[in-house]
């Protein structure tokens, strides 16, 4: 006699965007796991065509309110690649500083507001604040420090206005930058305390043998530059991306799935960056990772919260180092000549590798744009994780199983707004 159970959650919470999960279980076996993304499509790649290339950083920022800097950075680097221009020196360091701000803000949002409630059995950070106000205040203070970097360098926290192809429109004053350094010293202490706090959470026993993909740079934990490498030997330039990766359109999702050709699903994001680059973390981030017991690699997606916290330590320390050695650039930007060309770039958004391609015509207008966000690259891997995770847990009651599946999805800090853009969870047992 076939057993059939059905579990449904209409809207998955504490993720950015709208999606659903549909799990089918027949005779005690998981037969299908489908992450459905019904966030409405917004067609960025279509309406970028015919826009001036200089508009790309302002327009692509609107793909995501949580990580606009990532979109701006991938856009400007791809457009500079098309023009054969390399932005170096103090301007390059200021771009790293801006990215540090976004990592601190976005990771802290996820660690404290979206992910920690799962481990504490709460619905929200507001519920957490009723019992542990000091802890929540620490998270808010840390997030505010990240936002302070973005607001100072970018003009505002969400959709900053100061990024342009070639550099910035204006460089902030020395006094404002030194005030920022004081705020970041407190932030570094808060970040270290955060690692200690999350490392003590109770994590399910669950490890996955992922192929990790991230940028790798010889001297730096990656933000804006580096080769695209994997834990299974991939080592390519951003220009070669489309030769090795492919996008597949599946019916259940308004976001395209990205796969490695001939190999399939892979994982981007904090665990991938950590696996491939942990030796390049800042000294205190490395020490915090050791104390937290992360080792050389972390293959338990539930512990991604610890890796995010470690990356926040890194971003605070890196930001402080950039500010300590700050030299004012002579001009806020370098000239980037127009001309027909194609440019490619990948940068490390908080959620992982973000690849942009632009083909520009002789008049400086965009002829073709292709944007591959981290969550669309992770979609297949999220489904694989769930298949593996659910199988030994089928004896759980529907409510418990549903809660744990939601958690397993939140491990990825999925940004569905980016990936197209709602999470609904349906477990159908037959």
């Amino acid at each position, binding site marked *: 006699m076939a057993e059939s159970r059905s579990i449904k959650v209409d809207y998955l919470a504490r993720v950015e965007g709208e999606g659903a999960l549909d799990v089918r279980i027949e005779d005690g076996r998981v037969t299908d796991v489908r992450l459905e993304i019904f966030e409405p499509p917004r067609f960025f790649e*279509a309406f970028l065509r015919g826009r001036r290339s200089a*508009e790309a950083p302002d327009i692509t920022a*609107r793909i995501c309110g949580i990580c606009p800097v990532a979109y701006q950075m991938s856009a400007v680097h791809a457009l500079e690649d098309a023009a054969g221009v390399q932005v170096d020196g103090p301007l390059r360091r200021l771009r790293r500083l801006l990215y540090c701000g976004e990592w601190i803000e976005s990771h802290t949002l996820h660690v404290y507001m979206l992910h920690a409630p799962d481990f504490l059995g709460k619905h*929200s950070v507001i519920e957490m604040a009723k019992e542990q106000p000091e802890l929540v205040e620490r998270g*808010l203070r840390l997030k505010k420090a990240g*936002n302070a970097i973005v607001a100072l360098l970018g003009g505002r926290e*969400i959709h900053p*206005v100061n990024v342009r192809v070639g550099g910035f429109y*204006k460089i902030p004053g020395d006094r404002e930058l030194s005030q920022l350094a004081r705020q970041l010293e407190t932030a570094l202490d808060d970040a270290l305390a955060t690692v200690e706090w999350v490392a003590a959470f109770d994590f399910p026993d669950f490890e996955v043998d992922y192929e990790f993909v991230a940028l790798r740079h010889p001297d730096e934990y990656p933000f804006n530059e580096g080769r695209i490498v994997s834990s299974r030997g991939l080592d390519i330039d951003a220009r070669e991306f489309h030769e090795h990766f492919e996008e597949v359109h599946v019916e259940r999702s308004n976001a395209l799935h990205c796969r490695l050709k001939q190999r399939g699903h892979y994982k981007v994001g904090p665990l991938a960056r950590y696996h491939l680059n942990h030796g390049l973390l800042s000294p205190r981030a490395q020490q915090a990772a050791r104390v937290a017991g992360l080792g050389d690699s972390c293959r338990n997606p539930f512990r991604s919260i610890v890796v995010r916290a470690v990356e926040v330590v890194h971003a605070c320390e890196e930001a402080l180092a950039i500010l300590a050695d700050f030299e004012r650039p002579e001009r806020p930007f370098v000239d980037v000549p127009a001309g027909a060309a194609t440019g490619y770039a990948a940068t490390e958004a908080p959620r992982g590798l973000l690849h942009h391609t632009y083909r520009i015509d002789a008049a400086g207008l965009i002829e073709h744009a292709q944007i591959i966000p981290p969550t669309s690259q992770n979609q297949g891997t999220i489904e694989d994780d769930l298949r593996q995770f659910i199988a030994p847990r089928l004896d759980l009651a529907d409510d418990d199983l549903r809660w744990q599946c939601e958690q397993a999805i939140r491990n990825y800090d999925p940004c569905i*707004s980016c990936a197209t853009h709602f999470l609904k969870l349906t477990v159908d047992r037959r």
Partner: protein
Amino acid sequence: MSDKPKLAVWKFASCDGCQLSLLDCEDELLTVAGEVELAMFLEASSARVEGPYDLSLVEGSITTPHDAERIRAVREQSRALVTIGACATAGGIQALRNFQDVEEFTRAVYAHPEYIRTLARSTPIADHVKVDFELRGCPIDKGQLLEVLSAFLHRRKPRIPTFSVCVECKRRGIVCVTVARGEPCLGPVTHAGCGAICPAFDRGCYGCFGPAASTNTPSLADHWKKHLGVPDDELGRAFLSFNAWAPDFRAEGERHG
């Protein structure tokens, strides 16, 4: 159960940035949470309290048949409904589809256009249901968001100025980028609220708060053309961006596009 006013936050087609503005109120978030019951705010909480709601904040534009139904259900459950941001108020950047063939757009982005269910137009919330207040901006300003929350909780009118960015810019004592450097700037026709950040960063305003209450866009366009040498196609693009479907910007953009 709580006797505090019930606040709900809803998302339609958008980037999540405007609802994030509430979580970005790091200094005020816990105070706000003390004054209202966050009854429905999926980005921040997995708790779901049934309606009706005293105040609904709506982010995003209507782009699918399902969302056109959903916004009516939200309106029915809400005593007051406030739209937050350019998508909910003017259709957002995704309203650029309204000027083109959406089927062609779908083919450009997706391998299987037949899997995609979408409307030909991205439209503001007020095209579908009664809206009690529209807060502008791409993204909204969090200070203005707090003012709107406070006003609605005290059942008074929000104090949100409707003059142009130029007024904010002059008040800050910023040197005019158009007068001093011949930089095209949409400040004279753009709704205030951002604090004139673009001119403060040495660039012209690009209109992300949409049109101010009374605008003379033809006069500004004429000035750009005659005195700043801005070509027609550039003028068209300047008006047709984050608030392309706002009537004043749309009309001016179509004159040049």
